[in-house]
């Protein structure tokens, strides 16, 4: 039997007039098969992403435009353009007698294909704040290239998050989760811990703060090079790297960091926590 494919695509053009209030649009996306697991894929250049699980069976999307990212720079450029001393654009071409037209259109693509909803925008100059409600059991892939924070609440599918510049906060999740931030913190609160697939949290410069349920069976592996580890769980951390600074038979071992590990309730599935500079906080609830 030929599989039915339903594709819903929206090309959303939003006005982002500098002088106007932020504008919000909302869309409700029906899934091809609401009985099956949904997948949400968001990739934005700037702005914020918030995803929340709810009881419904549709994907509810709310998009709000923010102010221009380089507002100050734009105004300055306009002033200098109209001034007497400078009449050139940043590319060096003359703007004498020309009037700057602000590009206020924002392109945002929303597509549904076989239960996978994709939201994409590659525009760098505008902040786009995307807020989405999804069925609890939805898989997420979220990427914010130059934006602010990503928040996820009460989503029980697998979660992949990449946020090089902003923070990541995920609460009420079950995992598996693979989350990576560059500059800011990663905060994760598990409702329960998925025993089938490993999870991993990475913060290059920020802090990792993770909270696990008391009864979860987790093999926690922690690696930090310049940060400290703070644990409030009922399990002992031990070094899993044998570190030896002494020379033995022409063989020298040195330590530059080393990993620590603990088995919570005997351990079962891996949770890897990695930072370069940031501290690591492990709590239980």
């Amino acid at each position, binding site marked *: 039997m030929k599989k039915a494919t339903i594709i819903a695509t929206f090309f959303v053009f939003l006005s982002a007039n500098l002088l106007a209030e932020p504008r919000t649009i909302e869309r409700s996306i029906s899934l091809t098969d609401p009985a099956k697991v949904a997948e949400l894929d968001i990739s934005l250049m700037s702005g914020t992403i918030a995803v929340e699980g709810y009881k419904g069976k549709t994907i509810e999307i709310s998009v709000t435009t923010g102010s221009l990212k380089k507002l100050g720079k734009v105004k300055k450029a306009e002033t200098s353009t109209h001034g007497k001393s400078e009449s050139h654009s940043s590319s060096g071409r003359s703007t004498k007698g020309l009037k700057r037209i602000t590009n206020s259109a924002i392109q945002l693509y929303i597509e549904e294909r076989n239960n996978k909803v994709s939201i994409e925008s590659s525009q760098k100059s505008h902040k786009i704040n995307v807020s989405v409600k999804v069925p609890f059991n939805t*898989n997420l*892939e979220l990427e914010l290239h130059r934006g602010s924070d990503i928040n996820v609440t009460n989503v029980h599918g*697998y979660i992949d998050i990449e946020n090089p510049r902003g923070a990541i906060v995920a609460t009420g999740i079950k995992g598996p989760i693979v989350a990576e931030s560059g500059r800011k913190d990663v905060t994760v609160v598990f409702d329960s811990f998925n025993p089938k*697939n490993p999870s991993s949290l990475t913060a*290059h410069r920020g802090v990792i703060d993770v909270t696990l349920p008391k009864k979860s069976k987790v093999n926690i592996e922690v690696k930090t*090079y310049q940060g400290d580890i703070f644990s409030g769980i009922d399990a002992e951390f031990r070094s899993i790297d044998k570190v030896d600074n002494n020379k033995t038979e022409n063989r020298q071992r040195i330590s530059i960091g080393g990993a620590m590990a603990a088995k919570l309730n005997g351990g079962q599935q891996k949770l890897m926590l990695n930072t*370069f500079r940031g501290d690591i906080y492990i709590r239980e609830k």
Partner: protein
Amino acid sequence: MKHEDIIAKKIELLQAGDGQNLPEEMQQLVDSSPELASEISFMEALWQADNHQPVEQPSQQMDARFYQMLSQTQSELNSAKPPLEATTKNKPDSTLSGWLTRLFNPQPLATMALLVMVFGLGYVTNNTSPEPTPHVSAVVSKLEQKIETLNTMVALNMLNDQSASGRLAGVSYSMSNQANGKVTQTLLQLLNSDSSSAVRLAIVDTVSQRLNEEKLQNQLLDSITKQDSPIVQIALIQLLLKDGSQTSKKQIYALLENNQLIDEVADYLNVIKTPAQEA
């Protein structure tokens, strides 16, 4: 009637080798269950390929080996789950590779195939004579190879998943299945190209088990300068400084001297290194 009863009957008929079909009642159940039908087809194909004949009873050591393999396979399948949703990037086609893609995606069919093979291996070893003959050894060896091939296919499929979670599970699966050369090469390719630092860090842990291979050490050295993430770069350096050869260590310090490392990694290495370690 349980599926296992039907499978046992099918094996009995295959072993008899007289071309008899399943009893009508069983055949109806097979026809009504796509999973069971697929399993039976797989068994027929496997039996035909291996030209199985009734064989003698295996030794106690072979029995013990079989149960160890069964236990290992079951624990592996439980501990490493392939992608939650089958979301491969390429559409399966009608070629052999397409068939294999369909076979291993979604996971249940691959799981079933592995279990059928282990089941077949167990049946062969449990219904034969006390001393293994060369023929029994050959059959067992073939089945072991097939299981390894299936493990490899599952691992490669998982490593190709579009989600970082799926690929991380693939790395974990590769680790638990003592990755063969092909899987190791795929892991090394991902080490240089995967967008997720978590996946790359997990790969560093996995390949560390085979650090005694000089070629692998060289590949890891090459990978150091390809990393854009300080945390992955320093993990590679840490591994090679700890367990690598003297040559590898010298090359790492050469990278440091030549300013080929990420600044914060170089700063960190400059702080912790001592002249003795550099020598």
